[in-house]
């Protein structure tokens, strides 16, 4: 097991290194000279341009630029925002808790929808509840997140007037208001992965229900409810939870549009604003952080899987 863990950790390093090269390379796609953008009003002054280039090491060869950039990134320095004149890392740390709250709520909502529906459809395999649940899941996957958000605002906020259409109140300020401002976006965000969780749960439950221990439990004369919920579901949840951890990465991507629609000042709004403002270091920084989080989540999922599944420990 330790050998496996080491090897798995060893895989993370090259992946992150390649990612850093790719994210650094993004800069090279940019049309035009970054120094020109940064100089703003003074773009006609060759001295200013030369100074900016020297400060950012833009006059050095690419491998050296990359090495310097990577060195700084490894020290937690993601560069300076061109617009807001603040370190990118600070900006990200400011916004991350908002998105984590949203993502956490979305994940809970997704589990509350996806897992029971998955169990239902596995228990009634091939019959109408199964067909219905699958149709709902397919519809969920096919609905663009941002459109669902707009439709919910239209229904819940504009027509019914139940919840505020946009804005955000921090949890520390007023927990109740905070919940009111985030429940709708969290539902929208959770929708996308609840369908995925449902499919995973269905497959895992079908597998578990076909196992010998389930047959034994039934043969003992246990009630069907106990067999399904206690014997089958507990075992089926193992792959679901680990796959769910990977889906958390997808939440970060979904947050981009969801936060935009509900004007929630989180991580997603940060990257969108940065895109509009051509604030490239922020875009790079956000992509880097998201990539690192996703890679680590995948690692965490693998370790979790190993921990809850004793049979793999000796493999």
């Amino acid at each position, binding site marked *: 097991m330790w050998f496996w863990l080491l090897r798995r950790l060893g895989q993370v390093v090259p992946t992150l290194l390649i990612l850093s090269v790719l994210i650094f390379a993004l800069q090279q796609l940019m049309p035009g000279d970054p120094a020109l953008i940064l100089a703003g009003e003074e773009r006609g002054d060759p001295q200013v341009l030369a100074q900016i280039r020297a400060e950012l090491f833009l006059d050095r060869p690419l491998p050296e630029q990359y090495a310097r950039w990577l060195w700084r990134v490894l020290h937690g320095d993601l560069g300076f925002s061109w617009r807001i004149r603040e370190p990118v890392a600070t900006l990200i740390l400011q916004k991350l808790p908002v998105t984590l709250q949203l993502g956490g709520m979305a994940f809970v909502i997704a589990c509350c929808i996806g897992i029971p529906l998955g169990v239902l459809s596995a228990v009634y395999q091939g019959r109408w509840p199964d067909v219905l649940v699958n149709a709902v899941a397919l519809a969920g996957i096919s609905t663009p997140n941002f459109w669902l958000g707009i439709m919910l605002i*239209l229904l819940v906020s504009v027509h019914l007037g139940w919840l505020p259409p946009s804005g955000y109140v921090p949890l520390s300020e007023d927990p109740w208001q905070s919940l009111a401002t985030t429940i709708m976006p969290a539902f929208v965000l959770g929708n996308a992965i609840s369908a995925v969780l449902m499919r995973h749960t269905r497959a895992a439950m079908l597998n578990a229900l076909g196992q010998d221990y389930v047959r034994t439990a039934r043969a003992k004369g246990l009630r069907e409810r106990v067999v399904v919920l206690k014997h089958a579901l507990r075992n089926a949840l193992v792959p679901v939870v680990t796959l769910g951890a990977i889906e958390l990465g997808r939440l970060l991507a979904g947050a981009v549009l969801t936060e935009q629609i509900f004007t929630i000042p989180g991580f997603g709004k940060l990257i969108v604003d940065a895109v509009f403002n051509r604030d490239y270091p922020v875009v790079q920084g956000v*992509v880097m952080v998201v990539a690192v989080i996703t890679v680590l989540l995948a690692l965490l999922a693998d370790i979790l899987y190993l921990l809850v599944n004793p049979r793999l420990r000796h493999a």
Partner: protein
Amino acid sequence: MSAESPFRRALRQFFRHRLAVFGLVVVALFVLAAVFAPLLAPYDPLKTSWTLVRKAPSAAHWFGTDENGRDILARVIYGARASLMAGVVAVTLAGCIGIPLGLLAGLAGGWAETLISRVADAMLAVPFLILAIALAAFLGPALENAMLAIAITASPVFVRLSRGMALEAKSTDWAEAARALGNPPWRLALVHVLPNIIPPLMVQATLSIAEAIIAEASLSFLGLGQQPPNPSWGSMLNSAQRFLTQAPWMAIYPGVAIFLVVLAFNLVGDGLRDALDPRSQKR
């Protein structure tokens, strides 16, 4: 009983799948709408009118009008062009990048395989939409750039799939026989491996188109895709958001269009998978 060709059997399987056929019909309708947009659209999608600003749906304007008095039905019909083109072009491009690289990785092995699969894995580690947004942002806002960004983002899936299939195919007896007959590796890839991996690639391509259409709509919603005044479902939703209380119809129809076309591609993809997968064969 006479033997049925695999193609005909797959076709028969596919058409037994009622939902998949429904999906195919919907896709066909959208393709027709995109191709014959000038004939079908009741109005010019770009023609503004100050007397018709934000009019509710009526007999003259079935889907209502937008903030510039343009007919929404006409814009939804023309918007199919941007969406379908983005979906098909981006995925074709992704296949053209991903499949050769995947075949190369699978058949050549060695450092080429390590490098290619590492890069593909690293790209897959970034959530789809975030990578697409970042690429589109750096390339600059334009529909062509959005398509390119989506294509690059979608390509690692094709690398992984075709590499896996090539590895599997390489170890089969018929590939061994072809190699023993002295076929060069490129011939092995093109003539022997590629035709065998086309079915799973078709399934993946269909599902990728659905994903690419959502991505294009998302990028256009953020202003990174189709540029105004040209219609795109994503950018229509963007302007609709500002008039949600006064003109909700602006937000409904483009979204329904995205939902329907994405659902249709997903249904076709699922149907294809069932029809082409030899393991799920029913007589």
